[in-house]
């Protein structure tokens, strides 16, 4: 009786352990996508981004990736501010006008850095935000001009 009870407990514990391990593995492998839309934020393609950059010289382009990634190649005229390092004071310093158009991009649709930065900026009252959701991957896939720092 006791033996069978211990056996049942052991099997239950083993099953639960395997289930948790399996779930964790699945979760670990599943890299999230960036949101499809962000409220009150304009999403643009690479071509639309170029047109905006060319037509609005005052457009602020923020690269939300890591510094190393930025140095390997970035869009001409962009400045690098990692999403985790984006501070309100810093943003207000480079864009005091909260209605100023600001374009954010990061690595692509599997990257959450630019959306995170945008959410921060929205929270700080910036209203003219543009999101290049396709990011660096779309840019390089379309073989558009890049700046490569040594």
């Amino acid at each position, binding site marked *: 009786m006791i033996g069978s009870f211990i056996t049942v407990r052991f099997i239950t514990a083993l099953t639960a352990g395997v289930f948790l391990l399996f779930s964790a593995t699945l979760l670990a492998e599943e890299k999230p996508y960036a949101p499809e839309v962000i409220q009150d934020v304009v999403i643009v393609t690479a*071509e639309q981004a*170029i*047109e905006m*950059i060319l037509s609005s010289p005052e457009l602020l382009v923020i690269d939300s990736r890591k510094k190393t990634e930025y140095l390997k190649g970035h869009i*001409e005229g962009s400045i690098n501010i990692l999403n985790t390092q984006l501070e309100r004071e810093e943003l207000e310093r480079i864009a005091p006008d909260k209605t100023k158009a600001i374009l954010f991009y990061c690595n692509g649709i599997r990257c959450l850095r630019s959306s995170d930065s945008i959410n921060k900026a929205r929270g700080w009252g910036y209203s003219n935000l543009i999101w290049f959701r396709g990011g660096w991957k779309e840019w390089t896939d379309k*073989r*558009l*001009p890049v*700046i*490569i720092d040594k």
Partner: protein
Amino acid sequence: MKIESLSIRSSTIAIISMIGIIAIVLSMFAGTYFKQAALDAQINSLSRVIQVASQEMLKQLRSRTFDLGMKLGHSSELISMLKAPAAIDKERLVQLLDDPFVNGFVGFSEIDLEKIRVYNLQLELVGESNTGPAMLGDELTGFLVDIVKNRKVSDRLKAVDALWMSAQGPLFSTLVPLGGLRPVGYLEIIVNPIFNLPDIGNITKTPVRIYSLSGDMINTNEQEITDGHLPVEFTLHASDGTPAFKIAGYENIDELSREMDNTQTVTITGFLLLSFSTLLFALWLFHRFLFTPLGRMIGDMEQITHGKLDLTVNNKGLREFHILADAFNSMTDQVRMRTNDLQRLLDLDDNALMCFDHDNEAVYFNTGATSLFGYASDEIIDLDSTDLFVDDINQIIEQADVADGSRQDSLHARLGCKHKDGHVFQCDASINTVDVLAQNGIAIALNATPGNELVSSTQSYQRLDAAEETLSSLLAFAKENPGAMPGLVNLGMLHTGDNDIDEQKAKIREQVVKVMNMSLSCWEHDLCKTKLELAEESGLWPVYIDKSTPTTRTLDKYLNIASCPKNPRSQRAVDTAEFVLRNMMEKSPGEKCTELHEALETFRLLLSGIKSRNK
């Protein structure tokens, strides 16, 4: 070959053998076809792999040239020169363009840089590096021109590239905008793709040779090629669709064949083992559930058809055989019942029915016959036709055949018959020849009620004919089933078909005659009595009255080997000898008595040996 000569066992074994042979042949064919198909698939696969690898190689090349183009394309000096085309310092421009050749660049060793050229936005050549071939002309390749001119404004910033055929051979060009997002011209990076093509071998893991369209080898990845390598060609086309060069990858067929042979051996062996195991199992199933029960049934059926009507066919087997055996058993029961009924009817028939074999010995007789002639049933069996009839039956039949050669019906005659008490009487008879054990015999039906006036002569003969025909049919059945009719005592004994038994019967006859002669000799010489006295005192032998003279016809037959019946009454001979011995022991036991005793013992031994063997 007749279908009847084939047994289910041999047919099944033949079919299973055929399936086995077909399995072997098919596996051989399948193995060969599998090998060829695998080889074709491998070659097709390698061709596709070369195609993909060449695309991958071009992609890497594209990436390298794009990186170089991007680096040069942001050169402020170049940009400023193109912004003021009228004041271009050509020498300085060439120096700038030659710089990557002189000072190198990131990935320098991974491409074979041929030329760097600069164009204005109208795609007019502004300048080119001194390094590299000088025969490329002063225009951008037409394919790239078409692409650039047909693009939308936003697309003009995108780098484009092309594999194109120059006067010196195939070249790969990447055109990038000069000046970044605000281009002032274009930069063309020209490389030789042949330098990178052997890298295809690193992807395909095979030796690779690059050939020009004229068939000259222009590059290789330096891997050894043996006779066991099969070339797989792929033609790489330029961007405008014209063939650029041939890439030959070499598949190691020997290694592939070795692997395929191993696979083939394993799969065929496995298949054959599985097939043969299945066939053997099927054969065992057939043997267990088909051949064995069927063989047992056939054995039983053969015994039944040879007369053992009391036997039943073993009905243990598959459903169909069970039904068949039961049907056969019920059929046998019917035959046994009908035959017994028929024989009982014949036995009880008022007419005297009898049958004699070719030696004129009685084979069958019914109760009508025994009562008509006044003999007991064990007496009449020792008689022949001459003992019972005054007329010679065979002669009557021969005369009738001579008179009517085409006679098919029974012969009707009035026969003179001898009663046991010696008186002779006349009887209407229906006589016919019958087949008794493949020899001519005679079936006779006698009208045992001659005084019945109510029955006309025709009706009487019709009855006799019917009785005689029934007897004939029973005899025919008894011929096919000896032993089936216990009433046909001699018939069952006569039928042997076995040389050993024939020899035994001959020995028995000899011994019977010997014992009888010795018994008679002792009786006459030692006891001084006659043969007639032996028959009368022993009560074993009938005494006949022929013309008022008592005779011992039956006893006489047992004294001569020629007249002794083929199936002599052995027990009667033994009883006679014992009777003589008893008398001699009482009166004059002597040497002859001992000899008779020895002969009797020998005879008994012979009989007991035969009986035990027959068991």
